[in-house]
């Protein structure tokens, strides 16, 4: 019973990848969830943060990336070379890659209930694989055809992942790519990070109303939450920031998360993983943000439990 969460917003630079990493660490460590992070962003920020640059290179060389899986869907590599045998989605994953010292291989709690963190890494050429996919599966007169095809392909991949993960987190790219649309359609929960500025607010409104409700028709997707990030720092414009907060309160209401992330952890010294075999404790990695990130994880864990309970009730109803 996997719960899927999209971390998505139209605007870039609002902290989507960092939020994804924080949530993956909080859920795997504190809630002992088996978490898979799916990096859908060709910028590969979360992949680099979780694997290190060297680790991401090794993943690319060994075809353990979402790009390699997408090549398999089109039957061609991003350079156009034919791919004779299909790859399974599972064979392109990186598992047990947490950089937290609690998950160091020699310390892994090997009980079935213990948490762990895995990654479906992205690479910059994911964009080209996605373009090839869009061209191959576009049907005249139906702009949704690549997205619907991608939705079905992702469903097959998730069927392969059955029993492996409790939570799947999608780190969506800015904008509204085919992969992002299909991932949001699969999601039970959407978390939209935003900064305290007018364009961020505009982007959130547009994403929720035009994107999720309008374009994707997911008006029933009620578990969507706005998360304010990088709320500290920057002087002046206090009146405008207050106005944005009021605007957010009016728009999101109960869909605004109570917890806020005060500043970008990317700016902290120790977030990036220097090497594949380097580990940090949760406290060391997040420094003064540990309590906020734990609270953020708890807020989302509550929502995950609600989704799980709803599914159990739905199964009981259908059985009776």
């Amino acid at each position: 019973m996997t719960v899927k969460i999209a971390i998505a917003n139209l605007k870039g630079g609002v902290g989507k990848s960092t939020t994804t990493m924080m949530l993956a660490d909080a859920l795997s460590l504190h809630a002992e969830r088996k978490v898979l992070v799916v990096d859908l962003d060709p910028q590969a920020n979360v992949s680099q943060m979780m694997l290190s640059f060297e680790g991401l290179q090794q993943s690319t060389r060994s075809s353990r990336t979402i790009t390699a899986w997408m090549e398999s869907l089109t039957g061609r590599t991003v350079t156009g070379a034919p791919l004779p045998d299909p790859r399974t989605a599972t064979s392109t994953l990186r598992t047990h890659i947490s950089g937290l010292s609690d998950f160091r291989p020699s310390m892994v709690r090997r009980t079935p209930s213990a948490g762990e963190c895995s990654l479906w890494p992205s690479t910059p050429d994911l964009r080209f694989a996605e373009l090839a996919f869009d061209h191959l599966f576009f049907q005249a007169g139906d702009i949704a055809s690549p997205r619907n095809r991608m939705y079905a392909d992702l469903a097959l991949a998730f069927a392969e992942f059955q029993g492996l993960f409790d939570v799947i987190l999608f780190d969506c790219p800015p904008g509204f790519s085919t992969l992002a649309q299909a991932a949001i359609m699969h999601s039970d929960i959407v978390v939209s990070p935003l900064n305290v500025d007018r364009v961020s607010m505009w982007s959130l409104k547009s994403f929720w109303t035009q994107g999720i409700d309008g374009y994707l028709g997911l008006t029933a997707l009620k578990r969507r939450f706005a998360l304010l990030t990088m709320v500290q720092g920057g002087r002046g414009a206090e009146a405008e920031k207050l106005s944005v907060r009021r605007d957010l309160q009016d728009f999101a209401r109960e869909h605004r998360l109570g917890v806020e992330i005060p500043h970008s952890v990317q700016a902290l010294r120790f977030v990036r993983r220097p090497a594949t075999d380097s580990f940090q404790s949760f406290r060391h990695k997040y420094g003064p943000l540990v309590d906020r990130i734990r609270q953020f994880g708890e807020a989302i864990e509550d929502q995950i439990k609600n989704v799980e309970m709803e599914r159990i009730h739905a199964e009981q109803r259908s059985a009776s």
Partner: protein
Amino acid sequence: MPFVTPESALYPMVLRWVDTQFIASGLIEGRAQSTVVFSANVSQQSAGEGGLWSRPDLAAVVYTPARFLPNWQAELYSFEVKTFDGVGQTAVYEAFSHTRFANYSLLVWQDGPELSRNSELVIDLCREYGVGALTASDPRIPHSYKVQVKPQHFTVSPTGFDSFVIERFPATKRREIENWLAGNGWGRNGEELQ
């Protein structure tokens, strides 16, 4: 969980375990986080020289870096997969015969949550022959696999290692391995394995 049959239905399930849990199982020595695994279903590939029990069901080439070695270490793992009622003394001998070309040989089979008497006997025999024993209470779920016996290391010649990969691994997997080697500076100047 019902017992899975036929044996071939277990292959993709065990392969999922190899792809996702193998590096954290304690079977691979060294730095698991940096380990690179290339797995394949090799049951359908023809065995060049033939011979008795010369074809394992699954195999994995495992590359592991070491801090004070100038190179990565390469090792070949073979997996002989058996159903609940297909495992027995002969299966251990079959897995042992794979140590002719694999550095580590494992026997994998489905068993209930509690080990059966037959499984206990097989595990004892695995220990005696240096064959690894891996059981799964629900083969669909990679977290239900349990290492009962760690396999012993066997020495394999570089040519034997190469021959196995060339003859048994599918073309895409071979290409992936070659690409990975080339990316690490050990390329064969574009020469394609036949």
